[in-house]
């Protein structure tokens, strides 16, 4: 396969994968932006993010931790926050913290290495957003850029179904406007990386004894777009392989917390100079913390694997050795295409189509303003049909969203017995395919098995409050052996006897692992 084709097609694959990955959280971002506009309103939004008070930075960080968005999904919210006149410091705090953690990824993270590591990472992110927020506000005071837009009539006067319709129109317009352009800008970072990093190029760049590991990661992490769950799973692999903890922290803050579009948006709205100072400040703080924690956070008792596949996803998915271009494209996208991503993508496409129609026909939310203001007689005639203040509805919606994501945690991480049923299915498919010489089928089910092994631990943690050390150790062993099996299956040509030897060693480990989690 020619190198140019590898670069172009590899880049397009990464963009397509990114589009599927971003769809759920971008959709959530569009919903939150519309809620901020038509339910919380300008004043409510400013209050939510701490207004002009000193607590605006930690408050924005905290709100960001609760909302399930990624570094692209946060962009429509940022646009709306800016319209509402939220301080730049709070904007930067929210922009960086919201994508880092959400209830799903935080739970996942707590079961990875030692829980203390993730708590420290969260605390580190608070330090960073506070320091940068203060810097940003100081820069802004000098520039005095008052940017609060006047309150529009739709925001003030729409109610009931009209307000709901305005929300939908707002989301549809957003789905075809700046948010869409910023999404593609952010995803273009993945294409650039695929062009720059050949297949498997990151496998040895973040070893724990490599002093350059945090800096290597920094170079890659800025153009990276990673969802919080992806970053957490990569952190898990890094801890499993005893890679550099500093590089893991850099990936979390820069890879998950921001992307090219975040930087571009700040520069466009607050000037290139201020944004450059902010960005350099961010890099300095992140690298400082990364090197400070690099040695102390090395997990004890883990033998370095000498490489990692955690970052293969940022390098080009194709190599010159790959054959069957269409098959590879199809497989690469199929692996990413989970049900949540596909449904969200379909909904987003519907919103985008609606947005295009709205733009073509020149419809906007102003048409939804109630023509005649309500008279006192009308208001009195309502009696018990009270008009609930829109702020109350807005806060209820946001709290509902957070509650929904907590409920989603229980759905995403089911009970141990349910996980074990899924694992049994994946194990049967994977091992029988491996033993019968069908590596492609085995390689499809192997990550499914591995993913369920993590969900099993989180599901247990959610319901029991702890994962026993023995259970964690058995989980570590099964994942280690699954990775060895993956290596054997990836070998070209596959050596059947080697594969069978690994399968034989997996079976007793699997029995012990499953038994340790089984609830009688």
């Amino acid at each position, binding site marked *: 396969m020619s190198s140019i084709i590898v670069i172009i097609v590899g880049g397009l694959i990464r963009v397509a994968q990114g589009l599927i990955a971003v769809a759920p959280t971008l959709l959530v971002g569009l919903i939150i932006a519309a809620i901020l506009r038509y339910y919380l309103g300008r004043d409510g939004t400013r209050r939510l993010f701490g207004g002009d008070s000193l607590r605006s930075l930690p408050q924005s960080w905290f709100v960001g931790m609760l909302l399930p968005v990624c570094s692209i999904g946060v962009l429509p919210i940022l646009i709306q926050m800016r319209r509402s006149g939220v301080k730049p410091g709070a904007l930067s705090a929210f922009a960086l913290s919201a994508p880092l953690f959400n209830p799903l990824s935080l739970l996942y993270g707590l079961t990875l290495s030692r829980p203390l590591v993730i708590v420290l990472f969260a605390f580190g992110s608070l330090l960073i957003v506070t320091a940068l927020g203060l810097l940003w506000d100081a820069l802004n005071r000098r520039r005095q850029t008052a940017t609060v837009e006047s309150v529009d009539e739709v925001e003030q006067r729409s109610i009931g179904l009209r307000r709901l319709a305005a929300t939908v129109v707002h989301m549809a317009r957003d789905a075809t406007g700046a948010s869409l352009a910023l999404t593609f800008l952010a995803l273009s970072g993945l294409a650039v990386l695929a*062009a720059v990093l050949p297949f498997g190029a990151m496998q*040895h760049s973040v070893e724990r004894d490599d002093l350059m590991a945090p800096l290597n990661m920094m170079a890659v992490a800025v153009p990276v777009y990673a969802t919080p769950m992806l970053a957490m799973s990569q952190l898990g692999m890094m801890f499993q392989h005893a890679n550099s903890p500093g590089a893991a922290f850099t990936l979390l803050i820069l890879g998950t917390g921001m992307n090219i579009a975040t930087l571009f948006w700040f520069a466009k709205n607050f000037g290139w100079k201020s944004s450059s100072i902010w960005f350099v400040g961010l890099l300095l703080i992140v690298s400082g913390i990364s090197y400070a924690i690099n040695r102390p956070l090395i997990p004890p*008792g883990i033998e370095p694997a000498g490489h990692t596949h955690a970052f293969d996803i940022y390098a080009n998915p194709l190599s*010159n050795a790959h054959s069957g271009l269409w098959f590879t494209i199809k497989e690469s996208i199929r692996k990413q295409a989970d049900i949540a991503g596909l449904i969200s993508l379909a909904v987003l496409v519907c919103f985008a189509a609606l947005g295009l129609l709205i733009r073509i026909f020149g419809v906007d939310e102003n048409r939804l303003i109630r023509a005649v203001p309500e008279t006192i007689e009308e208001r009195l005639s309502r009696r018990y049909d009270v008009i609930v203040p829109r702020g109350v509805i807005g806060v209820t919606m946001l709290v509902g969203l957070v509650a929904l994501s907590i409920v989603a945690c229980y759905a995403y991480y089911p009970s141990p017995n349910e996980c074990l049923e899924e694992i049994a299915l994946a194990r049967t498919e994977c091992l029988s395919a491996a033993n019968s010489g069908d590596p492609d089928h085995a390689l499809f089910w192997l990550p499914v098995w591995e993913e369920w092994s993590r969900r099993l631990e989180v599901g247990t943690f959610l319901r029991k409050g702890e994962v026993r050390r023995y259970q964690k*150790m058995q989980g570590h062993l099964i994942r280690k052996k699954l*990775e*060895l099996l993956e*290596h054997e299956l990836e070998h070209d040509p596959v050596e059947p006897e080697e594969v069978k030897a690994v399968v034989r*060693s997996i079976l007793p480990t699997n029995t*012990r692992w499953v038994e340790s989690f089984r609830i009688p």
Partner: protein
Amino acid sequence: MRVICVILFGVAMLSGCFRENTPKASLFEHDHEVAQHWPDDLADAVVKIRERLARKDNGSEHEQEPEHSHPPHGDSIREILEIVSWVPEIAADTNLSEKDWIPLDNAAETLSANLRISGNQWSESDRKQVEAFCHLIEQSIPKILNQHPSQEEPFP
């Protein structure tokens, strides 16, 4: 912007994106690196720890001499620490029950923490703790029940 493009192009060239048709037998040429002193099983862990203890003691004796020609014994100490921290994993990969695994895990964790604090300056107490740990491993070995021969393959 132009500068960024030039830099990215340069990095792409350096990283070998444009190499033509390099033959490649496998997409994963790098298997897991396994430390040479990774024990085959618990019994081997005891042997390896004791070997290094002896080597360390010999090294210490020679260090008393003004011009000793032996290598520093820091490597032995580091390797003992590593083997101690690997014991819970090796034990978990046997049929040792969870009840019998927990004391080994606790002892390994405590001993690793103590040895890390001691660094290269071991006290007599450190040495005794390592001996006691070896003894604990030996006591655990008979508790491994009915391990099928095919399950006994060392798998680091």
